């Protein structure tokens, strides 16, 4: 059972950390050059980015976190060598409604299918429900992202909306699913 003493940002093999403005842009730039990763992570057209642009984005991001107060952005780092392996985000937070949208991405293909996504999602949900005290958390995934869909369902997310053929890629149209998980539902699992 979780209590005040249990760490929020330390997992088994991974931890949540802040942005390293010197080292991280180069790593994330490499991820953007992998079209498979970009198509799983984003619905907008995949396009490679230079580290210089990502560095600027990080600055804007931290400014937004501080000013808008509706975004939490964590870097996922491997505990063994502190290298950057992904990101975990809660965004579009509406405090009066108690809602937020989550996104998780593991950047390098050799880091996937190792359970890091599961650990990250577990930590992110605990942060959302037990620290931010949100009422519900939403997530979206295109129908071809079977990994994300399986992970969300493992944590009890309910598929609520099917935006039919909302996305076009690789010569065909795909459905976009929206998932939701309520605080009560999460609490009853833990």
């Amino acid at each position, binding site marked *: 059972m979780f209590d005040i003493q249990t760490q929020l940002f330390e997992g088994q093999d991974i931890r949540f950390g802040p942005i390293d403005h010197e080292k991280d842009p180069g790593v994330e730039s490499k991820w953007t050059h992998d079209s498979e990763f970009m198509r799983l992570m984003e619905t907008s057209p995949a396009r490679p980015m230079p580290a210089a642009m990502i560095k600027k984005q990080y600055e804007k991001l931290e400014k937004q976190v501080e000013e808008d107060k509706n975004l939490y952005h964590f870097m996922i780092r491997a505990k063994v060598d502190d290298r950057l392996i992904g990101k975990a985000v809660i965004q579009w937070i509406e405090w009066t409604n108690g809602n937020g949208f989550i996104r998780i991405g593991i950047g390098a293909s050799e880091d996937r299918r190792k359970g890091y996504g599961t650990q990250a999602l577990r930590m992110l949900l605990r942060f959302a429900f037990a620290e931010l005290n949100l009422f519900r958390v939403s997530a979206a995934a295109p129908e071809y992202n079977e990994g994300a869909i399986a992970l969300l369902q493992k944590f009890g997310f309910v598929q609520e*909306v099917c*935006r*039919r053929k*909302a996305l076009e890629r690789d010569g065909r149209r795909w459905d976009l699913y*929206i998932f*939701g998980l309520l605080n009560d539902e999460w609490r009853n699992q833990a």
Partner: protein
Amino acid sequence: MRDIFTGRLVRLSAIDPEEMSKAFARWNRDSEFTRLLNMSVTRLNSSKAIQKWLEKEVEEPSPTDFFFTIRSLDEDKLIGGLGLDGIDWAAREAFIGIFIGEREYWGKGCGTDAMRIILRYAFTELNVWRVSLGVFDYNPRAIRSYEKVGFRHEGRMRQYLNHEGKRWDILFMGIQRDEWLQL
């Protein structure tokens, strides 16, 4: 080709920031109106603040946002507004929002008429493939109107909104181009 912006009860026209901001500030005082429209906290904005925001929007036509005012055909009165907001061009999808601010024009078919005009615009002028919207489950008048126009139900985000001590769902609806052509 006929005038694409005129319907049976209403017509769409360009936003005049000064006129719209005064009207919007007035409509905003009706909290039933704002709760039907907004997800976030109801607040009161001065017409000056709204005008500044509108002027900025109108000054530089954006390739992803298309906003219009709705005027009644009978008296050419400004009664509301609508817009296609944040068009995702690669997916060829547009989200749409509409509001009728003048209470006496509620429940008369003006919203439905305006929605028909903008759908035609979206599908035949902007050439999008899909138009989507979100509507609150405590707004059955709007839901009926969208169903009449051809939107199909696609699910609901459960207990998304928090008002008056209760929680409410957001319904998602969508219409695809080939579905619209068959109407």
